């Protein structure tokens, strides 16, 4: 079956709502409008306004209410329209969702899914183009997942809802229209492991979310030059699946990390630091990072493009590293 990422998320939502009466969806314009990205279109008709809840513009409170509803025994899915607005709810996420289990000595868990669109690439300018999923991954107590494929868009939600702890699901804005085949039997997928999306032996390209496509493209280009790149899709940013990453690096001895976060303090730094700790003597070249330039995202296309990690930069980083081998 050919489907889109948008439809895959919608199917995941529909299935969760059908399967478990404790599941409900709330957020701005998820109901009558059908979701800012059209993801939840039709769900209001099928499940009614008790379970598909349009909220007022009150990010802090409806995210906090999701935490409370999870404490109250439900399995809420909260949609924060985009990561940009989630800053208004950050206190609830960091000070409540991430801490209540711990502060209560394990008495209360918070089985909550928070979905949000993330990323740049649509000329939405500085306040609507943040990529903060890697930044969120700093916080203990929450889990961060970043579906980059149709399978994951379809399958991560259910697993996240079965997780007894809060899971933040970041859907990259530019992926919703991505189209491709998806098995009719597609369903829940694990959210513990990174995936090798392309196997190779010369260099490990590590990425996630919105930049997976460009990274795979870069691998194709590299292949034309005779460079055999392995592409790792992190899938889950917290906790990181270091075993998969390390297995790859032990094979290739070279690493390029591609991360749409601003370079300084992005998740790419953490991965680089960890690899330098665990595989220092396995690395044949300094780890390279291809990240977003340290600038609020500008509106014009040529500047936005220049700010974001693009295929040629990935190719160049890998190529110069492999060149260094010779």
């Amino acid at each position, binding site marked *: 079956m050919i489907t889109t990422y948008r439809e895959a998320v919608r199917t995941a939502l529909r299935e969760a709502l059908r399967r478990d009466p404790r599941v*409900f969806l709330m957020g701005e314009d998820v109901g009558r409008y059908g979701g800012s990205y059209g993801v939840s279109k039709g769900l209001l008709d099928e499940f009614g306004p*008790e*379970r598909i*809840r349009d*909220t*007022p513009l*009150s990010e*802090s*409170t*409806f*995210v*906090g*209410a*999701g*935490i*409370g*509803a*999870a*404490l*109250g*025994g*439900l399995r*809420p899915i909260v949609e924060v329209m985009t990561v940009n607005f989630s800053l208004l709810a950050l*206190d*609830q996420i960091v*000070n*409540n969702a991430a801490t*209540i*289990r*711990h*502060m*209560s*000595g*394990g*008495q*209360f*868990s918070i089985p909550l899914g928070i979905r949000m669109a993330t990323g740049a690439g649509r000329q939405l300018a500085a306040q609507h183009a943040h990529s903060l999923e890697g930044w969120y991954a700093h916080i*203990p*107590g929450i*889990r961060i997942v970043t579906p980059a494929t149709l399978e994951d868009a379809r399958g991560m939600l259910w697993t996240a809802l079965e*997780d*007894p*702890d809060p899971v933040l699901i970041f859907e990259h804005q530019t992926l919703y229209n991505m189209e491709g085949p998806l098995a009719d039997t597609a369903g829940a997928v694990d959210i*513990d492991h990174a995936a090798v999306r392309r196997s190779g032996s010369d260099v490990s390209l590590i990425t996630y979310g919105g930049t997976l496509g460009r990274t795979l493209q870069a691998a194709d280009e590299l292949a034309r030059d005779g460079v055999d790149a392995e592409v790792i899709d992190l899938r889950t940013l917290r*906790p990181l699946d270091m075993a998969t990453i390390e297995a790859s690096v032990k094979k290739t001895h070279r690493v390029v990390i591609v991360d749409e976060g601003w370079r300084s303090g992005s998740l790419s730094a953490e991965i680089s630091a960890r690899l330098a700790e665990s595989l220092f003597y396995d690395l044949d070249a300094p780890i390279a990072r291809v990240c977003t330039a340290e600038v609020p995202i500008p509106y014009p296309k040529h500047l936005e493009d220049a700010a974001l990690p693009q295929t040629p930069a990935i190719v160049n980083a890998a190529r110069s590293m492999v060149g260094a081998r010779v």
Partner: protein
Amino acid sequence: MTDGVASARSALAREHACVLLHEMRRIRRFEEKCAELYSAGKIRGFLHLYIGEEAVAVGAMQGLSHEDAIVSTYREHGHALARGIGASALMAEMFGKREGCSHGRGGSMHVFDAATRFFGGNAIVGGGLPLAVGLALADRITGRPRMTACFFGDGAVAEGEFHESLNLAALWKLPVLFLCENNLYAMGTRIDRAQSQTDLRVKAQSYLVPAETVDGMDVIAVEEATRRIADGVRRGDGPAFIEFRTYRFRAHSMFDPELYRDKEEVERWKGRDPIATLEKRLKEEGLVTDQLIEALDVSVADEMDEAVQFAENGTWEPVEDLLRDVYTRRS
């Protein structure tokens, strides 16, 4: 009314009055102990005493049902005790021992108890209101006939979350009872230096949430209002708001030099001590005797000594368990 009924009623009334008195004295004594133990270095971190405000916790909890959920603040020892969390488990928590009601992880500001549906102690002012809305939403969606009581201070009313939470609760007609403990100060900031409109009822009413002001130094008035209003909330009337006018007799926390208020003001309010007031009234009405009060005192003192002993005897969680309870499943 026959004499028999009248005397049964008065026996009941006496019994209940004694419960109220007892509960308030328990809180008072517990916290006096805490203050001592803080000086002794047994309790650390922030310690916010509730002394002077006991009538609110006790009256309100009496008016609630065991099924209801409670969301509280960092000034929650009174709420916790009045709700039925044992003094020993609470004191062990103050010490950080693993026998504490939050396993020692939370301390004074993070009292949690699943058994009594006590959803914490929250150290972020206003941070509990959205949680209460969500707990109520869960009850609403599942059709359970219970509600959530949410305590917060006058200071919290200025936070954006107050606004968002009252609106959402009212919009969705959720069973939340907002209980504002107006002790006139947020740390050192008097309410008229924090709020353009100091009549907090007006604020609640602007969301079409019914609101009342109650004398928070009068435990019987607190109980009556809470019970009456909570019944409506539980029945599905939508959220409600009660402002309790009260006063904290002690400093904001153990670090507060109290530069911001007059000694006389404090003394004036101490003249309205909710415990002394109730005692006086009960004595005047002949409902209690000095002996009974003395007996109460002794039992409370014993209970709290035991609680301290329990906490002292408690154990420290081993350091190897440091990463416990960050996630439910450990990966």
